[in-house]
């Protein structure tokens, strides 16, 4: 279980500290997929970065609770897998080396059993033919699959995904989402999925949250009954979509253009 309590994070800039997340609290069950929606610049990627151990916490805590007790989340003690927006494959390593790098970094021995499992994952993601290639020699979809393979080979306790499918075109994206679900179902790691797409959030998240424009507060949270359902046609689904759409608009009345993409 992931327990975030009163978390505050800020960036240091020349003009002092810029707080981005301020007093965020959040709980995730083991095996939950939390889909995070939010306007641009609200702090979604920042949240991912904090959980990945890239950004120091100002105050509050992010703890991981297992049978063995409660410990602060830390990449050295917990196994955290990340799929950033551009997939984050190291360009100078082959697909195989990329996939095995996290294990190598933690000096985990690759037993025969493990090896078989890894082959299985390669097979399932159809990357077995690509293991010798470098990322620059892959198509967008292949890169995506290699990144998924890397994440799942690692057996992460916590899987963080930052808009993983946004770079794909409509059809490839649909395939990638299905595949993710298929593989995810094997070990069901606790997952945070940041996305821009309401459809994606409703398809891949068993909980959907919407972050507000400022301080990274969570504005809205819903249990999602449509998890894993790619094309539900119930009226409720459309209603849920519309609600999320409403929640995503900033609080104040919008006039013509919102400059959400501005700094």
């Amino acid at each position, binding site marked *: 279980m992931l327990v975030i309590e009163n978390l505050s994070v800020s960036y240091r800039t020349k003009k002092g500290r810029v707080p981005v997340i301020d007093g965020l609290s959040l709980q995730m069950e083991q095996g939950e997929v939390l889909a995070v929606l939010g306007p641009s610049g609200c702090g979604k990627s920042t949240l991912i970065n904090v959980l990945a*151990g890239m950004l120091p916490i100002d105050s509050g805590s992010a703890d991981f609770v297992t049978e063995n007790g409660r410990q602060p989340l830390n990449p050295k003690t917990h196994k*955290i897998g990340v799929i950033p*927006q*551009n997939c984050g494959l190291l*360009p100078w390593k082959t697909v195989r080396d990329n996939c095995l790098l996290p294990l190598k970094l*933690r000096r985990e021995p690759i037993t025969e059993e493990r090896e078989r499992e890894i082959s299985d994952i390669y097979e399932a993601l159809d990357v077995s033919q690509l293991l010798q290639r470098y990322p620059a020699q892959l198509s967008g979809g292949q890169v995506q699959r290699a990144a998924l393979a890397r994440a799942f080979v690692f057996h992460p306790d916590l899987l963080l995904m930052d808009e993983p499918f946004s770079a794909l075109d409509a059809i490839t994206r649909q395939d990638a989402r299905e595949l993710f679900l298929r593989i995810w179902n094997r070990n069901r790691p606790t997952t945070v999925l940041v996305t821009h797409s309401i459809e994606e959030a409703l398809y891949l998240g068993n909980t959907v949250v919407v972050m507000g424009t400022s301080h990274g507060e969570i504005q809205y949270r819903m249990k999602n009954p449509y998890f894993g359902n790619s094309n539900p046609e119930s009226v409720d689904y459309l209603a849920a979509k519309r609600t999320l759409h409403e929640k995503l608009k900033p609080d104040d009345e919008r006039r013509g253009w919102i400059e959400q993409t501005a700094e």
Partner: protein
Amino acid sequence: MKGGAGLNRLLNKCLIFLQGFLLLNIIWYLAFAIMRTTVIPSPITIYQNFGTVFASQIFIHILFSLKRIGAGLALSLAVGVPVGILMAYSENANKILYPLIYFSYPIPKTALLPVAMMLWGMRDGSKVAIIFLIVVFQVIVSARDSVRNIDPSVYLVTVSAGASRAQIIRHITLPAILPELLTSVRVSLGTAVSILFFVEGYGTKYGMGYYILDAWSRIDYIDMYIGIVVISIVGFALFVAIDLLSGLLCRWSTPLK
């Protein structure tokens, strides 16, 4: 297939070499034919005399020069790369070192020859030191800049997997800056070759710089031009070597064809 690509690339370089060589010689011949001055001998005369050069230990001269350039470059890389990485990652180190480098960069290092001789003697010590002083700044600046240009997202995956500082440098920083580092080595090589003229003017009887300077002081223009031709070919070979090395080490940066 890999071997074939490498061979192909080598052949391609050879073609470029031949083409450039031919063109330059045509220009040279025209200059000779038009000017008719003692300082521009005919390229034909030069190549007729080329045989004698191989007899006269030109390879030893080349070897000596390569040794000096190699040592200077290696030292510059050994010092410059870590310093550049340090400056890129530590704001404090950068604050102290940046002004120093910005200010020392334009100091004409060749004027420091007496100091270099004092500290490292008249032999290879001071020669390597001068090459080092000139090249190291370029290496530092280019290492620092290319570390800063690394896409932050590549750290994300590695850090989140629990990588230590050393692991990050080994798996991310060094491979990421390698292509730009090789480019800067290529530029530095050009510089180092031209400094040969300066540092091989004393304390040695070997080296291509010495060879040319010696011929020059003997007003043996044939020998001097032979030396220039040889040094150009060696320079070109070094360029090509780095190109091939970069093709080999940075295979990942070129998509399959």
